[in-house]
């Protein structure tokens, strides 16, 4: 089907997709450019103004350890709230189904959370799990700004029972 298909879409779709294609194919080139400029700090100062984020962003990701080309069959990003923290483990409420507000209580080793600075009860974390036969990988990220706190406010109509005296002691039995 090489060069044979012609899309006739409106709204500038194709130009947009083509741009994406070019950007993806050029991404390795831009990475190597960044590496070249890292070696010459003085030159860097001349080339980029303080407002330019290119070098700053390149350094943000430089220290991360990653294994590329590893194929995982299942990947989940689970928004979670910390329920309790002990010396050895952290218990969290994992929102396993956002649409239906289904939670699961899960316990993880404390060490997994060492990168979370504020490990307090009620705090939010994002738990990323990836699995394949015989292996699982868990990454924990601080959830501020990522986790939608509203998902964890479960009133679900209970407020309509307010002042219905359901919480009063039964005295007439």
């Amino acid at each position: 089907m090489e060069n044979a298909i012609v899309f006739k879409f409106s709204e500038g779709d194709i130009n947009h997709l083509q741009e994406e294609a070019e950007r993806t194919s050029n991404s390795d080139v831009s990475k190597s450019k960044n590496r070249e400029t890292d070696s010459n700090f003085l030159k860097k100062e001349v080339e980029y103004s303080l407002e330019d984020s290119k070098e700053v962003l390149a350094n943000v990701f430089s220290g991360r350890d990653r294994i590329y080309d590893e194929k995982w069959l299942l990947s989940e990003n689970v928004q979670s709230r910390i329920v309790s923290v002990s010396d050895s483990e952290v218990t969290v409420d994992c929102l396993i189904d956002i649409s239906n507000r289904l939670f699961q209580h899960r316990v993880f080793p404390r060490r997994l959370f060492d990168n979370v600075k504020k490990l307090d009860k009620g705090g939010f974390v994002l738990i990323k799990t990836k699995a394949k036969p015989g292996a699982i990988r868990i990454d924990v990220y601080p959830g501020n700004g990522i986790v939608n706190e509203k998902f964890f406010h479960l009133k679900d109509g209970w407020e309509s029972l307010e002042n219905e005296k359901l919480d009063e002691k039964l005295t007439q039995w």
Partner: protein
Amino acid sequence: MFFIRAREELCLTFPLIILTLVTIRKYRMSENSKSTVFQFEVRYNHILNFSEISRRLLSPFVKLASSIKVDNQGSIEERLVLNFDEDNYLITVSWDRILIKVQGAIKNFTESNSIIQTPFLSILDRLMELEGFGNVQNILLAANYVKKFDCDKSKLVKWFSERALNKAVESVFPETTDVAVVVESKMKESEATVSFGPYFGSSELLKRPISLVSNVDLEDFDFSGVMLESKYFMKVSEVNFSTFVDIVKVNEENVQRVWKML
């Protein structure tokens, strides 16, 4: 496909026609198609101050990404690209749209807690909370599929032409080297397009409008068969995970109709 299956069943009853079956099997398509890469876009009213708020808005998500790129920096059309190399996807956010491009089987991402929900829709939720955010205008799903077809590459075009084109089209050139069919459906609120034709191997995937995110899985697609590109565009006023699941379902139905026809 029905014809092929019918002949197979017949063969079990009447072993004498095994020779016929062998001939048919030679041109048989594999049962499962593979979606190689897909792109899901949500378009909204232009956010005029996007460049002023974009970094603050996206900064929490940077820790999930493996790299970030800023295009048209400081301009009204500033665009941020978050690359998630390890998971083979990227998210682009700009003043008029947010898109996610993912390499892998599209069905896997209709499960709860997939990357469509977090971080893609989480970022959209944060955008929608902005004071300057207008309305969601429309969504677009574009996906590439390939299906293996056990046939000599030199006979692929001829086989496809016989199935999908009439003889008049086949005879335009004495020797046809490539063909494709484009089918469009434009309704009031939606548009669908499927384009399909012979597929000669993984190198073709690198030339399509929806390019691959990485070349990691390229060898998995190094076979010949049929390639299909589908698009589904829909006007909507709100987007959530169910919207994505629904559009994938409609898209899959369109794709399955093409595979059935072949």
